[in-house]
């Protein structure tokens, strides 16, 4: 482990990391966000998902520094008396989980199908690529919207976890296409590289070649894509909840919080939307910047 860390530190990526304030900064921010989200239970002062602890009488309190604010609720409360700070932390957790999970899911599917298409070629390839075309003609928001509807219809009384599952699935459903295409492209390149042919001459089975030789060599672009898609997935989730098919309101994600807060922009209760919005920007920005940086570092032509 220590050795691995050291090797990373010593590698080109590590070097570039140490010398890029943007990368360090955004990694730091991303880490803080992820840390807070992961340990939300310890970090946040209240548990916003525990409905029993909500006091309606504490609803819509402004942040502590404004007149009428209390230190009990540092960033104020929303219309349900939910502590905004805690809600933001927990919401970030949900957003990150939804974002990361949908990216992982779509990456898994996309990479697998992309490998298959690139390696098998022929009609498998044609079929999968046409399938990608079809998926591309569905704008992601639409697919997610419809999928979320379908999910709700199929699991009408789903509890929260299933609702999340449906949400994640519906976001992933369009995103895998990007991975499939990228991986297929790289696979086509890698497949004809001589080291793959060497393995074939030796008699290594195609499946094994795909897994052991080709897969590790296409992870670079997938990584880049993944970082950037975590961000878009989080935004998609927010947009879906704007359209009314997001996560359950009792366990709001950042997107839900912003959407709810949107209703209070005119009434002056800016904190209900601004702080979740800031958090969202912070996460998306840092993840995007990391992705950008990674892309520049991993792209040999830009070295």
């Amino acid at each position, binding site marked *: 482990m220590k050795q691995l860390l050291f090797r990373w530190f010593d590698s080109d990526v590590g070097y570039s990391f140490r010398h890029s304030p943007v990368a360090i900064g955004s990694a730091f921010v991303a880490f803080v966000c992820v840390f807070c989200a992961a340990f939300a239970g310890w970090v946040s002062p209240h548990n916003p998902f525990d409905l029993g602890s909500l006091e309606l009488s504490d609803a819509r309190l402004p942040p502590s520094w404004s007149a009428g604010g209390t230190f009990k609720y540092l960033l104020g409360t929303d219309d349900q008396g939910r502590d905004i700070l805690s809600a933001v932390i927990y919401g970030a957790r949900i957003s990150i989980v939804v974002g990361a999970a949908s990216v992982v899911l779509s990456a898994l599917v996309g990479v697998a199908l992309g490998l298959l298409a690139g390696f098998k070629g022929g009609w498998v390839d044609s079929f999968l690529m046409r399938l990608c075309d079809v998926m591309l003609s569905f704008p992601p928001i639409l697919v997610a919207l419809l999928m979320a509807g379908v999910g709700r219809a199929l699991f009408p009384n789903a509890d929260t976890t299933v609702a999340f599952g449906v949400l994640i699935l519906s976001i992933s459903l369009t995103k895998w296409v990007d991975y499939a295409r990228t991986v297929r492209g790289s696979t086509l390149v890698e497949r004809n590289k001589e080291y793959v*042919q*060497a393995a074939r001459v030796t008699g290594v089975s195609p499946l094994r070649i795909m897994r052991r030789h080709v897969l590790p060599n296409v992870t670079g672009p997938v990584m880049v894509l993944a970082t950037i898609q975590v961000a878009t997935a989080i935004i998609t989730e927010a947009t879906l909840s704007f359209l009314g098919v997001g996560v359950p309101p009792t366990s709001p994600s950042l997107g839900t919080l912003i959407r709810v807060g949107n209703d209070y922009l005119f009434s002056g209760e800016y904190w209900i939307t601004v702080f979740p919005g800031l958090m969202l920007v912070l996460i998306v920005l840092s993840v995007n910047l990391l992705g950008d940086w990674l892309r520049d570092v991993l792209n040999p032509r830009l070295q």
Partner: protein
Amino acid sequence: MAACGGGCVNHTPLVQANDLAKTFDVSPPWLNRVLERKPRQLLRAVDGVSFQIEKGKTLALVGESGCGKSTVARLLVGLYEPTRGNLVFDGQDAHAVFKTAGGNALRKRIQMIFQDPYASLNPRWTVEAIVGEPLTEHGLIVEATALKQRVGELLESVGLRAQDMAKYPHQFSGGQRQRISIARALATEPEFLVCDEPTSALDVSVQAQVLNIMKELQRKRGLTYLFISHNLAVVRHVSDQVGVMYLGRLVELADKHTLFAAPRHPYTRMLLDAIPKMHDTGRARTPVQGEVPNPLDPPAGCAFHPRCPHANDRCRAERPALLDVVGVKIACHAVEEGRLR
């Protein structure tokens, strides 16, 4: 095969290619063909190539880019299925065997070395994994320390150090990488090595190192080589026999000494003439005109006739066969007719 004790000279060839051909279908999609009334387009990358290689000997194939050298190599190692003809390896029909369960046993005996020392090693694997892969894949060695031991030996046999196995390919120079490739190819103790331009990406100084190692290995282990190159000087250095290819066909197949001393085919002559001579500087040569024709649409008759100074009407119409002319095999009307000698 007749049993033959040590010391007796075995004249049965180890490798025998009979009328090998490989055609690629490069037709436009079906709809285009139907609508534009275009026929199917077939690219005859290799078109009826026959040769034999005796055990312990080296056959070199030379020719310009695109003439089908690599395709022959891939046919020999089973990366491609021949469209026509067959390959007899040690008395067995190789492509038939490749398909059966015994295929791996045969694959073990035939290995390949590639051109690009940078692309032929998986950049994410350690040298140990790369060289060890054929061993584990064929179940030759499963135990970790034994594997290390064997990989170390292999590396040392190609002039690297055993400690190098922990490194990654990018930590080696081009020549060293090519040695790793050789070590990998040797791992299964093959009898036949197909080398597709193993030195053309290398500097002359490094090329010398690799060629020396290859020769030494051949001497020590009795390896048989198919050596592909477009550098005639290198070919002369390593081979016993030389085949000259043009547009998918062999145009001349001869013993090395014969070929270099007295090239017969006009194309062979042209190739030899095109090589700049190092030691009689200043001599102006008249380079041959023209370039290789489009392989999709090869000229009728002798494919070389548009560039050939000796071409006549027969050359333009009739394709010459590869004929035995005093110990040399030649496909040329002019030579056959005695117009050229």
